[in-house]
C-alpha cells in the first residue's frame, strides 16, 4: 500500500498544476496516471489561453464574454474566479519558462478567438497545450514530486455513509499497467480527480483514445452528482477522416469558411451577420451541418476552411503546426488548397460537480480540469477558456486539498443544493442491472456494494481502503478468469456509433430515446464481458474493458440529461424546442447515481457575481 497526503489522479494540465500547488503548500503529493504525464491530451491543445493582460482589456469584459458564451448557464463565482486568476497563472507559466509566441516588443502574443470581444488568447504557436503540458511536467520533475506513471486508477475508496455528503474519500485503488499488480493508495488529506474529457463516448472526436471519462464515472458511482452532462461541445473545424482538430486560431487569424457553392455562408447564410466565422462554436458547428444537410457541403460531408490569403509567412509564424496536421492527417497542403473540415466532438462542458475550491460533496474528494464542472462554461465553452480553467482551478484544488485555509466556496454542492427534482420519461430503465454476484463484479459495482452482507457500514479510513482493494482485486480477477463472452471493442463501437448518430449537434426525442435503448443493450452485453488477454503484463485489453464500463455510464448520463432538457440552449439543440426558455431552464442538470437508480434533480445557476449581476440577453454574434 502506498500512502501520501494528496493523491492526484491524472497528470494533464489540471493534475500537474494541482500537484505543484499542493507541493508548494508543503503536502506530500503523488500523481497517479494511466499515461506518462507528457502523453496527456492537454498536449494536443492548439489555440491558446484566455487571459486579461493588456491595456484596453478588462476582467469584466472577459467575464461577460464567458457568461454570454455559456448562454447564461455558467456560475458567476466560477467565471469571475477564472477571469481574475487566469492572468496571474498565465504569467506564472511564463516564469516557469513556457515558450509563448512573442510580439515585436518581446511580450507574449495574444490573438482573437471566437466569442471574445478582445484578442486575449495567449498562445505558443498552434501548440499551446504541448508547451503548457511540458512546462508543467518540468516543474513536477524539478520538485521531485512522486509520479506513478502507467498506473490505472479503477476505484475510489469511499466510506459507506448513507448520504453522499457524509461520505469520505480515503484513497484510490489502481493497478500497475506494466505488471498488473493491483494496489491501494491511501490519501491522508484528499484525492483530486483530473482525468480529462470523455470524448471516447463518440466516434468522431478530437479527443485521445485515453479520454474515457474514468474520473466522472468513478465519482458518479461513489455518489457525486454529474452536472450539465447534456452540454457537449462539437468543434466546427475537425478533419473529416480522423477528427484531428484544426484550431479556431485559423479563423482568429482570418481563415474563411466556404460551402461547395463558394459562398461565405457564415455571413451570406445569415448565421452570424456581425462576426461571421468568429461566432461562438455552437453557432458555427450548426451552420456547417445545416449547409451540409441542405446539400451545400462537399461530398455531403464537409466544408472548406481557407487560409491561403493569409500568406505563407504569417501562417508559418503563427499556425505552423496546422500545415503539418492537415498534410499528415488529411493529405491537404493548406498553403495550396483549402482544408476540409466538419464538426466533431471536442469538449464536455459538464462533469463532476465541484465548488470554486474543487471540492465535491464527498469529503476529501476533489476534481479539476475537463472532468469537473465548476461551472465556468455553462452550456457552451469559449475557445481558450479550458486551459486557464486547468491552471486556475487545478491550483485551487491542490491548495485546498493540501490544507490551505481558503475562503468558503459560494457554490454549494451535493443534494443540499437541490431546487427540485426532475422528470424524464425513458423507454428503458437506466442505471445498473440487477444480476447475480457475477455481474456485479464484472461491472465493478460501486462503493459500498457489500454493505448489506457485512452487516454494517464501512466508515474507518483503513478498512475503507482495504475493502476497496479487495473489491477491485475480485473484479479484475473475475474479468481475467472469464474465458468467453463479449469483447469490449464490440460494445464500445456500437455505443460510439449510437451516440454519434443520436446525441450529436442536432437532437430530437426519438433519437435520444433510441440512444437510451442502445445504451441499455450495451449495459446488458457488458454483463457478459470478458478479457481475452490472460497476461498480467501490459494488459491493455483489461484496461479498455474497464474503460468501456465508464463510457456506458457517461453516455447514459449525457443522454438522460439531454432528454430531460426541453429547450435549446448553447450546445444543446432540440428539434422540438427551438427556443431558449429562461423562465424554466436557467438551472443546472444534476444526475446522481443513487446506488444504481439514477436520480435527476436541478441546482440553481448563480448569475449574481461579486462584480455585477449578469442579465440574460439574447445571444447574437
Amino acid at each position: 500500500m502506498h500512502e501520501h497526503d494528496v493523491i492526484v489522479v491524472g497528470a494533464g494540465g489540471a493534475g500537474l498544476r494541482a500537484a505543484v500547488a499542493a507541493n508548494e503548500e508543503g503536502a506530500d503529493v503523488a500523481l497517479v496516471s494511466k499515461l506518462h504525464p507528457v502523453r496527456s491530451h492537454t498536449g494536443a491543445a492548439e489555440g491558446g489561453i484566455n487571459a486579461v493582460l493588456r491595456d484596453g482589456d478588462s476582467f469584466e469584459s472577459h467575464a461577460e464574454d464567458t457568461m454570454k458564451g455559456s448562454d447564461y448557464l455558467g456560475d458567476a463565482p466560477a467565471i469571475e474566479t477564472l477571469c481574475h486568476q487566469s492572468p496571474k497563472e498565465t504569467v506564472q507559466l511564463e516564469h516557469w519558462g513556457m515558450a509563448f509566441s512573442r510580439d515585436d516588443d518581446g511580450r507574449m502574443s495574444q490573438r482573437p478567438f471566437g466569442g471574445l470581444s478582445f484578442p486575449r488568447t495567449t498562445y505558443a504557436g498552434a501548440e499551446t497545450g504541448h508547451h503548457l503540458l511540458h512546462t508543467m511536467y518540468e516543474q513536477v520533475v524539478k520538485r521531485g514530486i512522486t509520479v506513478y506513471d502507467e498506473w490505472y486508477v479503477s476505484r475510489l475508496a469511499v466510506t459507506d455513509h448513507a448520504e453522499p455528503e457524509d461520505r469520505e474519500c480515503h484513497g484510490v485503488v489502481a493497478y500497475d499497467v506494466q505488471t498488473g499488480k493491483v494496489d491501494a493508495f491511501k490519501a491522508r488529506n484528499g484525492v483530486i480527480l483530473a482525468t480529462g474529457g470523455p470524448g471516447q463516448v463518440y466516434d468522431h472526436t478530437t479527443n485521445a483514445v485515453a479520454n474515457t471519462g474514468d474520473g466522472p464515472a468513478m465519482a458518479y458511482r461513489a455518489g457525486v452528482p454529474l452536472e450539465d452532462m447534456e452540454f457537449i461541445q462539437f468543434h466546427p473545424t475537425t478533419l473529416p477522416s480522423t477528427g484531428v482538430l484544426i484550431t479556431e486560431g485559423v479563423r482568429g487569424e482570418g481563415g474563411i469558411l466556404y460551402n461547395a457553392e463558394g459562398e461565405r455562408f457564415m455571413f451570406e447564410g445569415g448565421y452570424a451577420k456581425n462576426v461571421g466565422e468568429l461566432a461562438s462554436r455552437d453557432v458555427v458547428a450548426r451552420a456547417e451541418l445545416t449547409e451540409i444537410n441542405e446539400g451545400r457541403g462537399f461530398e455531403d460531408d464537409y466544408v472548406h476552411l481557407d487560409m491561403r490569403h493569409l500568406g505563407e509567412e504569417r501562417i508559418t509564424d503563427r499556425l505552423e503546426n496546422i500545415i503539418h496536421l492537415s498534410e499528415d492527417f488529411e493529405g491537404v497542403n493548406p498553403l495550396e488548397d483549402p482544408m476540409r473540415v466538419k464538426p466533431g466532438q471536442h469538449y464536455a462542458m459538464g462533469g463532476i460537480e465541484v465548488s470554486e475550491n474543487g471540492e465535491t460533496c464527498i469529503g476529501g474528494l476533489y476534481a479539476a480540469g475537463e472532468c469537473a464542472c465548476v461551472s465556468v462554461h455553462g452550456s457552451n465553452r469559449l475557445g481558450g477558456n479550458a486551459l486557464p480553467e486547468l491552471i486556475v482551478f487545478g491550483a485551487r484544488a491542490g491548495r485546498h486539498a493540501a490544507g490551505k485555509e481558503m475562503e468558503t466556496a459560494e457554490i454549494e454542492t451535493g443534494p443540499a443544493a437541490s431546487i427540485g427534482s426532475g422528470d424524464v420519461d425513458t423507454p428503458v430503465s437506466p442505471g445498473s442491472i440487477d444480476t447475480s454476484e457475477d455481474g456485479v463484479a464484472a461491472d465493478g459495482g460501486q462503493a459500498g456494494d457489500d454493505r448489506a452482507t457485512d452487516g454494517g457500514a464501512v466508515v474507518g479510513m483503513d478498512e475503507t481502503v482495504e475493502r476497496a482493494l479487495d473489491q477491485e482485486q475480485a473484479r479484475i480477477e473475475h474479468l481475467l478468469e472469464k474465458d468467453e463472452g463479449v469483447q469490449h471493442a464490440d460494445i464500445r463501437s456500437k455505443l460510439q456509433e449510437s451516440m454519434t448518430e443520436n446525441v450529436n449537434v442536432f437532437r430530437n426525442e426519438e433519437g435520444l430515446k433510441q440512444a437510451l435503448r442502445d445504451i441499455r443493450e450495451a449495459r446488458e452485453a457488458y454483463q457478459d464481458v470478458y478479457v481475452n488477454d490472460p497476461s498480467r503484463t501490459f494488459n491493455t485489453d483489461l484496461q479498455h474493458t474497464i474503460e468501456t464500463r465508464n463510457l456506458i455510464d457517461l453516455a447514459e448520463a449525457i443522454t438522460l440529461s439531454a432528454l430531460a432538457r426541453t429547450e435549446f440552449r448553447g450546445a444543446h439543440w432540440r428539434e422540438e424546442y427551438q427556443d431558449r426558455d429562461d423562465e424554466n431552464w436557467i438551472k443546472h442538470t444534476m444526475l446522481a447515481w443513487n446506488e444504481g437508480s439514477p436520480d435527476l434533480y436541478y441546482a440553481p445557476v448563480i448569475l449574481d457575481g461579486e462584480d455585477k449581476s449578469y442579465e440574460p440577453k439574447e445571444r447574437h454574434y
Partner: protein
Amino acid sequence: MSTQLQRTETEGDESPQEQRLERKSLAEGEREAQRTEEESTGDETPHVHLKVFRYDPEVEAKREPRFDDFRVPAPQGTTVLDALMYARDEFDSTLTFRHSCRQAVCGSDALFINGSQRLGCQTQIQDLDQRPVRVEPLPHQEVEKDLVVDMEHFYDQMEAVEPYFQGETPDEEEQLQSRENREKVKMSTRCIWCGACQSSCNIAAGDNEYLGPAAINKAYRFAMDEREDDDIKKHRMNILEQEHGVWRCQTQFSCTEVCPKDIPLTEHIQEMKREAVKDNLKFW
C-alpha cells in the same frame, strides 16, 4: 457455466494464473482459424498485409518472439496506427501497443516500421513501399510485450539534464523574450519524448550512459533561452560536457533523420559542442 466445468477439469498443481494462461491460449487458436477464414472472403477495399512482432514473457505461446500476420482494410488515409487498432479490435485483442492522441503529439507510438523509427499515427500505409509492412518495437530498448518497450532509461536520460527553467523571474511582470530568441529555441521545444532518436542512435546503443540526442536537445532548449543567465548556462554546459555527453556524438545524423517533429538534432548537438569550446576558452 462451461467456464466453471473447465476450471475443475484442469485443477491440479498449477496456479490459477497458469491455468488461465493455458485456457486462453486454446481460445487463441480458434481465433487464428477465424482470421484466415475472413481473409478469403475478399471485398473491394484495398487491404494491407502487416507482419507484427509478438512477445509476452508471461504467455507460453508468446514466450518465443514471433511475427503474426494480419490482413486489414486500408482505404486511402489509413495510418499504421489505424491498421494496428483494426487488427487488435477485430482479430486479436491481445495485440499490445501504446497510443493515445492519434495526432503526433503524445509521443506514445514510436515504432520500428519497415526498418525505421516512425510514429505509427503519422505514417500513412500508402507512403510505405515495402509489403508486407513490418511493425516492430523500437530497437535498443527492452521489450515488455509485443510493441511496448521499457521507456524508463529514456526518461532517466531526459531528466538527467535538469529539464526545467532555472532563471530568476520578476515578481509579477512577464519576462520579455525577443522574437529571434524564441525562434532560435522553437524547434527544440517541439520534442514529444517519443524516443525514436535515441533508438536510432548507434552511440546510444553502445554506451548506455550516453545522454542521447533528445536529452541534449532538451538542454539546448534551456541553454539557448535568453531568459536564463550565464551562470546557469555554465552549469548546463558542465552537464553536457561530462564523459557521456555531447562529445560522444559522431554526427551520424540518424537521430535527425527519424525525428517525427523535424528537430535538427545533430545541428543542436554540434552547436552545444561549439558552445562548450567557447566556454572552455573563456575559463582556461
